[in-house]
C-alpha cells in the first residue's frame, strides 16, 4: 500500500500559489479573455415572457445589421417557454455593438400565457397555474420514516417547533458562463469557463454530433464556478453553431443579467421542523416537512424527483424520524449543483431547530451538540473551537446581552463526502535539462489545483514547487475529473504521487542513478541524453479518503433599532485529512465562510409575481458580501495525515449560515427563521414593524 512521506518539505506547509504572479499581473488568460484569430462577438436573445408559446422568430432584420455574420434560433418551429430568460436565438458579429443592435432587431412572435407562477407557496396550491401543462407543480412527496415518531414526541421532555426558510441563491461567479468556440474543418475547439473540460468536450460532441476526438476543450484560467459550470451549456452549443455558421471563432460570454436567469441556482427550502429530546438532552424525535423550488426542473412532470430535497436531520442520528419533502416547480430557471448541494439549507434548518430546542430546555446549545453529535471528530472540533472562540466567556442566555446593540454567539457543524476519482491519470515529462512538466486533464477553478500538483510533485521528486511546470485545462492531457464535490485535490494528489514514483523508477532504469531525487536530479536527468522521459501515472488507493467535517462558531452584533447584523468573528475548525498546501486550504475555508455569510445575511434571488421576471439580475440588488462585511476569521485545520487527502471546498461553506443565524437568535432572544437575515426581518422579529396601512391601489 502506498503512503505519504511522514517528513515533508512542502506537503502540509505554506506554499505560495504558483499561478498567483500570472493573476496579479493580468497575464492570466481567462476564457473571456481569449482573442482567437478573427474572433466574433456572440450574444443570446432571451424570452421576456415567463411563459409563452413562441410561434415565429424572424432573424432577417438581425442579419441586415452591419457587422453581423450569423444569427440562429435555439430551436426551429413552435416551442413552449417556461421561464423568463429562456434562450431563443443568438447572433455573432464583428462587434458587441452590432450584436446588441441585432438582438433588438430580431422579431419574435409569441402567444404569452396569461398565467404562470414564480412563488413556491402559490405554485403549491391546487388551483395554481401549471408550469408543465399536464401535471401538477409538486412532485410526489418523498417520505423517509423510521421509528415511531408520534409516540416518540410523547416521550420527549421538550419539543420545539419552528419554520426555517432559505432563499434561492445564485452562484454569481465573477466570470460569467461562456466560451470562445472555433469550429473548423479540423474540428471544434472551445476555450471555456468551466469546472469540467471533459464535460464540455463530451457535451459539445453530443450536441453537435461529432466524435469526441474532434472536440477539444481548453481552460487555462476561469473565474469561478461553484457548481454551475459543468457541461457545454446552451450558450456553449450556441457559440459552436454560430462559429460554424459564421466560419469564425465566436466568443460568447453571458452578461451578468443572463447569469441570474438560466444557468443555475441553489433551490429554496421551507422547512417545518419539530424536534424533541429526552430530559438529558438526547434527541429522540424529529419531523420535517420541507418544500422548495429548483425552478422548472421539478414537479410531477419531471420524473425522478425535484432536486430540492435536503438531507435531514443531516448530521444527527435520531431514533424516530419522519421526513416529507416536495419539489415545487415554478416558472424560473433550473437549479444546478451549488457548493455542497443540499447541505447549507439542511444545516440552517437543523441547527436552528437545535438551538431553539436548547433554548426551550434551558441548555447551552454547545452542550446539546456535544451530547448528540455522532461524530467523534466533530465533537473534538467543537471543543477545540469553543476554547479558541471563547464560547464559555461569550455565551449568554438568548437575549441576555444588554443594550441596544446586542451580541450573540452561535455554532453549527458540517459533514461532506468528498474522496478522489479513481480514473484520474497524469503524464510526466522529465527533460534532460532536469525540467519537469506534469500534464493532467483537470482544471484549476481557483482552488489551487495547479499548486497542489506542484507541491506533491516537488515533494516526491525532491525539487522545489517552482521547478515543476504544471499543465492543466486541456482535454488533450490525460483524463481527470471535473472540479466538483470537493474531489479534485483527492484525485490529483495520489495521481501525481504515482506518476512521480513511476518517473523515479523509470529514471533509475534508464540512467542507473539509484535515487535521482534532490541533489542528484540534474545529473540523473542529464544521463537521459537527448530523449525526454515520458511516464504515465494513475490514481492510487490508500492516499486519500472521503468523509470530512467541521464546525464553525459565529459572534455577531445586532443593532436592535436598525436591524443591522454585523458579524464580528468566525472561528472554524475543519478536518481535511492530510493537508497538502496549508495556505490554499485556508483560503478555501475563508471562501466557504464568506459565501455562507452571504447566504446568511445578503443573498436572495427575488422574483416578481406579477411579471414573472427576476427582479435583481445584477450586483446592485443581488447582494454579495464585500470586504467591509467580512469579519475576523480564525481557522483551525485539524491535521489527520493518516487519512490521506480530502477536499475542503464544500464542507467549509455549510455551517456558516447556521452559526450566524444562531448567533443572531442568541443576541435577540427571538429567532429570525428566514434567510437572508436582513434589517427588515430583524425588526419584524422584534415586533417593531407596523402593519401595512395602505393597500395596493
Amino acid at each position, binding site marked *: 500500500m502506498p503512503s505519504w512521506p511522514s517528513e515533508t518539505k512542502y506537503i502540509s506547509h505554506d506554499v505560495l500559489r504558483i499561478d498567483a504572479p500570472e493573476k496579479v499581473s493580468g497575464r492570466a488568460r481567462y476564457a473571456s479573455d481569449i482573442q482567437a484569430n478573427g474572433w466574433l462577438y456572440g450574444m443570446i436573445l432571451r424570452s421576456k415572457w415567463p411563459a409563452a408559446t413562441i410561434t415565429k422568430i424572424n432573424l432577417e432584420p438581425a442579419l441586415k445589421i452591419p457587422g453581423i455574420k450569423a444569427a440562429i434560433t435555439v430551436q426551429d418551429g413552435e416551442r413552449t417557454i417556461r421561464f423568463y430568460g429562456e434562450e431563443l436565438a443568438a447572433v455573432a458579429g464583428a462587434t458587441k455593438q452590432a450584436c446588441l443592435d441585432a438582438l433588438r432587431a430580431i422579431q419574435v412572435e409569441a402567444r404569452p400565457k396569461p398565467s404562470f407562477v414564480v412563488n413556491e407557496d402559490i405554485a403549491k396550491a391546487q388551483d395554481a397555474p401549471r408550469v408543465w401543462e399536464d401535471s401538477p407543480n409538486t412532485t410526489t412527496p418523498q417520505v423517509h420514516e423510521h421509528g415511531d415518531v408520534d409516540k416518540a414526541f410523547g416521550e420527549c421532555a421538550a419539543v420545539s417547533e419552528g419554520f426555517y426558510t432559505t432563499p434561492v441563491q445564485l452562484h454569481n461567479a465573477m466570470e460569467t458562463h461562456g466560451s470562445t468556440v472555433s469550429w473548423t474543418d479540423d474540428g471544434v475547439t472551445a476555450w471555456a469557463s468551466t469546472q469540467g473540460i471533459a464535460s464540455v468536450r463530451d457535451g459539445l460532441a453530443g450536441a453537435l454530433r461529432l466524435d469526441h476526438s474532434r472536440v477539444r476543450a481548453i481552460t487555462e484560467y476561469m473565474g469561478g464556478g461553484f457548481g454551475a459550470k459543468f457541461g457545454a451549456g446552451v450558450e456553449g452549443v450556441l457559440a459552436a453553431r454560430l462559429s460554424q455558421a459564421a466560419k469564425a471563432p465566436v466568443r460568447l460570454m453571458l452578461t451578468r443579467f443572463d447569469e441570474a436567469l438560466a444557468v443555475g441556482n441553489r433551490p429554496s427550502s421551507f422547512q417545518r421542523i419539530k424536534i424533541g429530546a429526552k430530559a438529558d438532552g438526547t434527541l429522540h424525535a424529529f419531523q420535517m416537512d420541507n418544500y422548495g423550488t429548483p425552478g422548472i426542473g421539478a414537479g410531477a412532470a419531471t420524473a425522478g424527483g425535484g432536486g430540492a430535497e435536503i438531507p435531514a436531520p443531516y448530521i444527527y442520528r435520531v431514533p424516530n424520524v419522519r421526513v416529507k419533502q416536495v419539489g415545487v416547480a415554478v416558472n424560473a430557471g433550473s437549479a444546478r449543483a451549488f457548493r455542497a448541494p443540499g447541505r447549507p439549507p439542511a444545516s440552517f434548518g437543523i441547527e436552528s431547530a437545535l438551538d431553539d430546542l436548547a433554548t426551550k430546555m434551558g441548555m447551552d446549545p454547545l452542550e446539546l451538540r456535544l451530547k448528540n453529535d455522532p461524530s467523534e471528530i466533530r465533537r473534538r472540533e467543537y471543543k477545540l473551537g469553543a476554547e479558541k472562540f471563547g464560547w464559555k466567556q461569550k455565551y449568554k442566555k438568548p437575549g441576555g446581552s444588554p443594550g441596544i446593540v446586542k451580541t450573540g454567539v452561535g455554532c453549527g457543524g458540517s459533514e461532506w463526502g468528498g474522496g478522489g476519482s479513481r480514473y484520474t491519470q497524469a503524464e510526466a515529462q522529465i527533460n534532460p535539462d532536469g525540467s519537469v512538466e506534469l500534464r493532467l486533464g483537470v482544471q484549476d477553478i481557483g482552488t489551487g489545483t495547479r499548486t497542489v500538483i506542484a507541491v506533491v510533485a516537488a515533494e516526491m521528486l525532491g525539487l522545489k514547487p517552482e521547478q515543476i511546470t504544471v499543465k492543466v485545462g486541456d482535454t488533450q492531457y490525460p483524463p481527470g475529473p471535473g472540479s466538483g464535490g470537493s474531489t479534485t485535490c483527492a484525485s490529483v494528489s495520489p495521481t501525481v504521487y504515482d506518476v512521480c514514483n513511476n518517473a523515479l523508477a523509470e529514471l533509475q532504469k534508464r540512467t542507473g542513478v539509484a535515487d535521482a531525487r534532490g541533489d542528484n536530479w540534474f545529473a540523473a536527468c542529464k544521463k537521459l541524453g537527448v530523449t525526454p522521459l515520458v511516464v504515465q501515472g494513475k490514481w492510487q488507493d490508500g492516499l486519500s479518503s472521503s468523509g470530512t467535517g467541521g464546525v464553525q462558531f459565529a459572534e455577531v452584533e445586532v443593532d436592535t433599532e*436598525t436591524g443591522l447584523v454585523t458579524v464580528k468573528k468566525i472561528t472554524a475548525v475543519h478536518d481535511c485529512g492530510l493537508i497538502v498546501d496549508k495556505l490554499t486550504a485556508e483560503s478555501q475555508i475563508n471562501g466557504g465562510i464568506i459565501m455562507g455569510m452571504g447566504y446568511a*445575511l445578503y443573498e436572495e434571488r427575488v422574483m416578481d409575481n406579477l*411579471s414573472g421576471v427576476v*427582479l*435583481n439580475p445584477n450586483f446592485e440588488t443581488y447582494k454579495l458580501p464585500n470586504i467591509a462585511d467580512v469579519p475576523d476569521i480564525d481557522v483551525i485545520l485539524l491535521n489527520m495525515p493518516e487519512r490521506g487527502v480530502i477536499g475542503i471546498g464544500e464542507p467549509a461553506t455549510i455551517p456558516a449560515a447556521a452559526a450566524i443565524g444562531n448567533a443572531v437568535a442568541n443576541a435577540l432572544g427571538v429567532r429570525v427563521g428566514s434567510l437572508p437575515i436582513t434589517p*427588515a426581518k430583524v*425588526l419584524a422579529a422584534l415586533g417593531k*414593524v407596523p402593519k401595512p396601512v395602505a393597500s395596493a*391601489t
Partner: protein
Amino acid sequence: MKAFEYATARSLDSAPQLATDNGHYFAGGNDLLGRMKDYITDAKILVNIKSLPGLDQIESGRDHWTLGALVTIAQIENHPGIKKVFPGLHEAAAEVGSQQIRNVATLGGNLAQHSRCWYYRHRDIVCLKKGGDTCYARHGDNRYHSLFTGNTCISPVVSNLGTALAALDATAIVRRSGKEARLSMSELYHRAWENPLAHNSLDPGDLILKVEIPTARGRSAYLQVSDKHAFDWALVSCAVAAQVSGGRLRRPRVALGCISPVPYQVEAANDFLDGKTLDEATVSKAADLVLANAQPLEFNGYKVPLAHALIRRALLKLKG
C-alpha cells in the same frame, strides 16, 4: 445600449442647444449609462458637459459655500473644509457608491439621478414611471420603496447628497431657458412627489450649475443603514443640521432619504425642535412627528422603526 452621437459642450449657451433633440447631459455618466445599457433611457446625443468652465470649483464663503455641479463626490468627501463646516455632507458623500464611483460621479449627477426602483430599472417591465399603467411595486416587492408619496408611484429618491443638502437648506442654481433659477431641495424634487413620471423638477435642457450651502447651521450629520456595510443603497438615510448655541437648536432641519420621492421633511418636526435641547425624549418626539403620516406597505414597514432610530441618532450627533 443604442448608438448615439456625442459632442462636447464648451459653453452654457451651447450645451442646451446641442442637447435639443433628445439629448442628455453627460458628466460622470454612472446613472445615465446604466439606464442606457438597460434601454430605460435612450438618447440621440450625449452632450459632454465636463468641459463647461467654472463648474468644478468648491468655493468657501462666510455666509455660504458654493459647490459646482461638476465637483466629484470624491472631492466633496475628501475636502477638509467641507468635513469641518458641513460634516453631514461629508458623511453623505462618503457613503455614495464606491471609491470608483465617487471618483467620477458628480454633485449634479447625484442630485439628478433617476429612481433605483427595481421595476423602473428592469429592462422588461414597463411600469408607471416609464409611462405604463401599473406601479408594479405597489402590488409586488416594495421592500425598498416609499413610506410617503403624493402619487401612485412609490419609488423613492436615493440621492445621499440631496438628503444632506436638504437638511442644510441648500439651494440648487439651475440654468433654465437661458436664465438662472434658484431651487430649494424641496423644489428640486417636488415634481416627483406629484408626478409618477418625474424623478425631479428639472425640465429637459435644465442644467444644474451649482449648489449654494448656507453656513448658518454649524452642525450637521448624516446616517444611513443599508443591508450591507458598504457600497449598498441606503434602506433609509437621515440628515440633520442646525445651529447649536447654549445647547439649544436653532433653525434645525431633519431630512430623510429613500422613503419618499423627495428628501422628506416635516415642518412641524423642525418647528418642534427649534429652541430645544437635545435629549432622548425630544429627539424621539421629533421622530414621531416626522413619521406621523407614514403609509407602510406590505414589505417596507420596517423603514418606520429604522427611520425613527436614525432620526434620533442623527439629532443626538448634533450635540457634538
